[in-house]
């Protein structure tokens, strides 16, 4: 029989194998691991190496069953111990993310996004935090989908304006205090005021200015720049609280 003809087989091989690859000194090194275990090994929740590695040998190709040559290993890693090399590859190699691992990761980041949003917003009426479960539900209702290549914080910030259409929420504001000495106070006062969304205290004492109020967290940087540039370092900016919310447990009955 010609070697080009293959008989079909209903046997599926390598079903429980995840391959971790690493290229070093122009050679490919692979190890055979169990599925859904490599990520756990990397975040140190799995401590038993035998639960991760199928075998303590390094392959040049797992699916063909070809082992790496000893010289190549020494050339690439400088050691001979296969187990140690396996551990290096496990840590640094490229891995196939298995289905459950992907699932867990996306669950995790979805949770992270809703936690982040919950930590950034308040209920404008009561100034109380909004529970993450409510945010979760609202995100689901607006068919929010996670983009795996962007950071959770970015996605959270993008989702907030959309959430405001369906929920009564508001970015939690920062409470800050600004002190400006006499010389620049008059000039800078109107500019400062436009950045504040709520001024609680506006004191003029001997010509110097002290302002206490709430600002949107987004305008903190421009406020900081403004004060630094206009007063040449003599003005002071102090954060009184990062989030203006009513904290703690409250009994409402």
């Amino acid at each position: 029989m010609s070697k080009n003809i293959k008989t079909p087989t209903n046997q599926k091989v390598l079903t429980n194998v995840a391959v971790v690859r690493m290229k070093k000194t122009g050679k490919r090194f692979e190890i055979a691991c169990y599925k859904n275990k490599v990520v756990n090994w990397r975040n140190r929740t799995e401590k038993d190496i035998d639960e991760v590695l199928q075998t303590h040998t390094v392959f040049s190709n797992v699916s063909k069953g070809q082992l790496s040559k000893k010289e190549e290993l020494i050339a690439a890693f400088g050691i001979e111990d296969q187990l140690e090399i396996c551990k290096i590859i496990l840590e640094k190699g490229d891995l196939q993310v298995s289905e459950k691992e992907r699932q867990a990761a996306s669950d995790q980041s979805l949770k992270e996004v809703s936690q982040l949003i919950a930590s950034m917003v308040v209920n404008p009426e009561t100034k109380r935090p909004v529970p993450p479960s409510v945010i979760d539900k609202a995100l689901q209702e607006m068919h929010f989908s996670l983009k795996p290549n962007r950071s959770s914080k970015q996605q959270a910030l993008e989702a907030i304006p959309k959430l405001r259409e369906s929920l009564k929420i508001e970015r939690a504001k920062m409470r800050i205090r600004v002190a400006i000495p006499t010389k620049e106070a008059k000039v800078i006062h109107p500019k400062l005021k436009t950045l504040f969304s709520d001024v609680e205290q506006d004191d003029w004492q001997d010509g110097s200015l002290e302002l206490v109020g709430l600002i949107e967290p987004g305008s903190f940087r421009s406020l900081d720049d403004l004060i630094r540039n206009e007063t040449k370092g003599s003005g002071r900016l102090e954060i009184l609280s990062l989030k203006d919310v009513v904290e703690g447990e409250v009994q409402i009955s």
Partner: protein
Amino acid sequence: MESLEQSLREAVASKPAEHIRNVCLVAHVDHGKTSFADSLVSANAVISSRMAGKLRYMDSREDEQTRGITMKSSGITLLCDPLLINLIDSPGHVDFSGEVTSALILSDIALLLVDVIEGVCSQTEALIRQVIRNGQAMILLINKIDRLRVELKMSASEAYQHMARLIEGVNSCISQVLGGLVLEDEGDIEEVETRYHFDPCKGNVIFSSALHSFAFGCEDFAGLAATKLKIDKGQLIPSMFGDYWMDSSMNIRDNASAKSKATIFERLVLEPLWKLHDLGLIDSDVGKLQEAASKLKITLKSRRANEAFDELMRSWLPLPKAAFRAVARAPSARATFQTKHRLEHLTKGHPLKELVLKCDPLGITVVFVVKLLPVEGGRRRAICRVLSGMVRKGDELWVLQQQGTSTESTKIEGISILRGRDSIPTDTVTSGMICAIDAETLLQNTTLSSDPTYGCLRIGSQTGEALVRVSISTQQLDDMDELREKLKLLALLDTSLKIMELENGELAMITAGEVHLQKCIKDLNDLGLVDLDVSEPIVPFMETVIEDPALAAPQILEQETECRIREALLIRMRVVPLGEEVVKFLDANGSLISSIRRGEADTQEMADFEKKLTVICVETLPTLKGTWWYRKPKELIESMIERIWTFGPERARSNLLFNSIDGYDRELIWRRTEYGSVRRFDQAIVGGFELFCNSGPLCNEQMNGVGVVMEEWRVDEEDAAIAGQMMSAMRATCSAATKKLALRLVAAMYKCTVTTASQALGKVHAVLSQRKAKVISEDINEATNLFEVVSLMPVVESFSFCDQLRKYTSGMASAQLQFSHWQVIDEDPYWTPSTIEEIEEFGLKGDSPNHARGYMDTVRRRKGLPTEDLIVESAEKQRNLKKNK
């Protein structure tokens, strides 16, 4: 019907207080309160007497009827000339003990029902304690006596022995309670005992069967016998119940049991009664039954034996008659307050006491609001007791304040007479009565009066520890505000329910137990909120550190922890356990600690507290082997107590921060004014400590019984940035220091009492051990042959326990759960087998699961904290085919 309503209206407006009796039915669950109430209600022709005992008229809620248990207390006013009786039916299930308390506050006389077979149960005992504390009169009702004959086939003498034992049991229970109480106020125990003890001859014991609607006291039969045997009734009554017998010449002799003679009670009461039971319920012989009836001059209409039996008993020994006779003998709505304990306990020497004592319909009006009722529309309706004066529709009454003159008034928009499921509107109610009023502003436990100058009555209803906490939300986000409003309303109606808004903004319901939770959810559904998301019950834990006797002194010294931030901050501290005794003492003085923290505590009280605390600490701390305290000199501990920096925050009070820094003489918490100063940023250290106490390192639950000893604290006060970091630095250092000790979880425990038939005993133990309960005792009740198993069970494990128990035992066992105490789980949550022997015994993964670890991980998962969960447990056992294979 019209005329009855009319005469009721007249009666509530004009009856003198001497003729008013406020009665409350209390008993253990399923001892027949509601059925008993039925019979009394039938006396007023509200329901047919044939249905009495079967209808459960007072259970008006749908879920009460389907479950067959009462869930709320409800009242009915009954007129039986010359008396006017306000009857209140209360629930028996432990979860609703808040309702029972309010029922008891309303009433003066407690009818204590006891199932003749089951005897004194856990709730019975608790109730006796409560009633005696309130100084109320008690009448014992031995219910379900038909069961002795029909189910247990007891002979007359067996039944007599059984009942005598039962009454003895109740009396010994009373003596126990009294012992504790009398010790408190040093009265004469024997005198009080004789007043409270039950004796059928005294007429404060009634034998009844609510199902068959008959009841009798000793004098009923004494009367019958007296005419028949031609003896003087007065002579017969004292010997009706007891070790007396009658010889052939009708002389009464004692020592019946020694001479093996039938006692008078057996001969005159039980023997004829059992005969009728045999005829009616066992042999079903209508003919003979009618014959017997005709002897008693009663004609029976019913054709079937069981109905004929009911009819006969109903007309021969009517239940309402016996009950009302006993009630009539008990103190009236006015006389009750002359009992020594009654008012003192309720009001503690209050200026209103005089008025309440007089109970004068023409005096100043004083109304005490006890319980709010759900009602349609915006108005509020409440059950209240008129303590003095009269209430008229349209009256303007003052809501009394704690101190000073009241400024708030409310208008009585309507008054109604309670009639179980419905109510009859009326215009005037006289003093001593219980009625429902409608008004704009009504709150529980408030006093209304026509004179604003008095202070309000302090009648508090204590509620049990609320343990079952669920977070609740609606599926539709828009309904959240409505949910919040409805929850507020619900909490107003039900004192045992608390509503909290959690740190993360979620709404949480805190209920007394599982059944109570189900009732609350049902209530919410009835209020129009159908699609609710109710979380799994959240059970509180606490975290603590314990001593580790295996540690040697140098190892303990190494538990010190340091924190440095640049050159600006240095904190050095150690964490120490406080030991059981000290924690117990601190827990007991929780409210004092709170007031010390607020700076409001009384100097004298504070000095006492300090002294006692020092004594306890000096005694117990140096004996804690395996802690830093071990063999520390007395002087050191005394000075440490003196220099306590602060106590734990409100929710975690039993924690201490010690100032053991050389050269920092901080002002003392005990004596603010004395020497010492507060360094800058002191508040940040306290704040950090409080944060740590509120969320410990295991799973962010509260800490309990932890001491933090500050040994060094240096801070660069010029560094502006450090101020913001100090609090979190302090907290993190505390956590880190705690992790060096043996951390443990503290779990709330239920005392679980299971009553079971003997054949299901094995199954009961199986369920109990599955729930990690620890069995304390196992007794057999000889009369019933039922086993009573008492065990301690962690609250976390208790959910749907009752259901499971019922399923496993095919309904042969039933359980009652009641909060008992907090207990340290003696299992290290971080333990893994490490030595070779341990690995051999437990396997590498720890084949026996670590419960503490499990509890910790559930809490961590709920709170979104990282856990060491694996995506798949074992690599080889993965299903690696496609899903459709």
